[in-house]
């Protein structure tokens, strides 16, 4: 199985057949219906995001108005000012970014190294490593949650960046993605380099990693998004406000003092979602490939 799962765009499976018996009319009606359905579906899917973004420029009073308004009657930046003045959002943004970047770099490096070892090297114990890593795939995260928390608190890492990062710098799925991709690199290429006297590390960094760029991009974007959106672990580990990540901050202020300030919550949610949307649009090719190959979300 190769990485390119997304097939070339668009082969319409049934070109409208121009038949003289009037079927073309029916076909055309069907196609209109199909498109209406698809557009309606799209509106349902992205509508909430539009409502969120527009709502962040409204006042809570306007959001509660019946009948509701679509565009803000009197657009205001007050919600965003509140977020950044009262709630130290730059700090949460910084925390989220640091954690997500560190987790991503760790996964890229460690997973590709092990992926290379499993795909291209022979060593005693290889089979055991592979089976052990494979075996953890079906274990639900809740099984490790409590022991991890005890471990992190015994290491004195509660309420630190390290505590937010370390448990996630390795992941079984990344190993399989990288192993699969590296397995597709021809052995001859690596052997030729070995004949020229290159060591395994030179081969790995100079030949293998550059060839893995698409797989690394997929792994990077999926890991980054996963970490950016992760909620439960930072909720438990970050105990003071200066360690909150964005989702934790938004979740806590929307059930706390600002419970009724819907407009402020909309602005907070928009700040959480915006980087994801930008990354998603920029890297969509790699995301789509990754999902179809590994099932990481």
């Amino acid at each position, binding site marked *: 199985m190769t990485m390119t799962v*997304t*097939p070339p*765009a668009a*082969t*319409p*499976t049934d070109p409208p057949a121009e038949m003289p018996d009037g079927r073309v009319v029916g076909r055309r009606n069907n*196609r209109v219906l*199909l*498109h209406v*359905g698809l557009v309606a*579906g*799209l509106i349902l*899917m*992205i509508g909430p995001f539009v409502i*969120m973004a527009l709502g962040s420029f409204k006042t809570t009073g306007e*959001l*509660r108005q*019946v*009948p*509701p308004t679509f565009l803000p009657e009197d657009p205001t930046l007050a919600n965003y000012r509140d977020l950044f003045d009262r709630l130290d959002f730059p700090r949460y943004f910084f925390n989220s970014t640091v954690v997500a970047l560190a987790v991503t770099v760790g996964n890229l490096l*460690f997973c590709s190294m092990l992926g*290379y*070892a*499993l795909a291209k090297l*022979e*060593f*005693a*114990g*290889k089979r055991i490593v592979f089976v052990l890593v*494979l075996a953890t795939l*079906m274990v*639900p995260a*809740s099984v*490790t*949650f*409590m*022991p*991890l928390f005890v*471990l992190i608190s015994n290491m004195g890492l509660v309420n630190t960046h390290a505590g937010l990062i370390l448990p996630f710098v390795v992941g079984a*799925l990344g190993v*399989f993605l990288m192993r*699969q991709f590296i397995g597709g690199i021809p052995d001859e290429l690596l052997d030729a380099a070995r004949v020229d006297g290159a060591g395994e590390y030179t081969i*790995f960094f100079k030949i293998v990693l550059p060839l893995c760029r698409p797989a690394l991009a997929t792994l990077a974007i999926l890991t980054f998004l*996963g970490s950016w*959106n992760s*909620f439960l672990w930072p909720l438990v580990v970050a105990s003071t406000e200066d360690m909150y990540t964005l989702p934790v901050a*938004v979740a806590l202020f*929307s059930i706390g003092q600002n419970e009724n300030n819907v407009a402020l919550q*909309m602005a*907070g*949610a928009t700040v*959480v*979602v915006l980087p994801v949307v930008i990354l*998603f649009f920029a890297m969509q090719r790699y*995301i789509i490939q990754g*999902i*179809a190959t*590994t*099932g990481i*979300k």
Partner: protein
Amino acid sequence: MTAALATETSAATPTAPPRRSRPTRKQTLVGWSFALPFFAMFVVFMAGPILISLITSLTDLRVTDVRSPFGVNFVGLDNYADVFGDPKFRKAAVNTAIFVAVGVPLTMSLGLLAAVALNQGVVKFRRVFRLGFYLPVVTSIVAIAVVWRFLLGADSGLVNGLLDQVGIDGPAWLTDTKYALPSLIVMAAWKNLGFSMIVFLAALQSIPVDLYEAAAVDGAKRWQPFRYITLPLLRPAVLFVAVITTIGYVQFFEEPLVMTQGGPLDSTLSVQYHAYNEFSFGNYGYTAAVSYVMFVAIALVSFILFRLLRPKT
């Protein structure tokens, strides 16, 4: 949520190189120098905790014992007996079962519908549609909760506001025991259907067009090509999506946490939510037992899905 289909990966194993002679000591050293960084972290942060969790589930460990583990006793399967005897757990198990049994088919059929529609119709803007349908999957549940709480609010929510326009008095979606769980199911389907859509779309596009042409020549009508060509060829994709969606939905937790806090009256309490509560109370032994019960449930359901949906030979 992360999950993957173990068999899918192992089946795709690049053909193992013909077994050479045993690796030399130098080869083993080099191999381990690549494997060790991952493996060390893996043992500390994954394999170790999995094992410790299992052992903990057989003890009466509480948060107060963590620093002086000498007061901890082995209690055998007592925790498991407690779990199954606990009315809260039973309530949570029923809620989770409903969530999985309704949510997984709903999510998958909506995803399939979207994929088939996209595959049939849109050509030019397919990318836009694909992105739009997938956006909720990559969005933080916290942000989604903000909007959905606003949409589903009892008095000033948008949905009830719209219902009001047509003269319907909408229910209190999130605070009525009858509607809270169904509301979360719909929300989860909305959030996750993009994943099934992407996988199904990729599978649909790999079906050769000649098959449909041949069927048309043979006079296949209306739904017949879909029933006899598309569905059978989608089988592996259906298995893949079913297993991954099920694994995720059995761990159903963040939705009620951010939307309803498990209420009203525990009507949206899930198994993992229950485990989390017990963890917060410091009942670590009990928590570990609940999470292992979930683990077994996931393994069982996955096994059943594999049996039901395995490719026919």
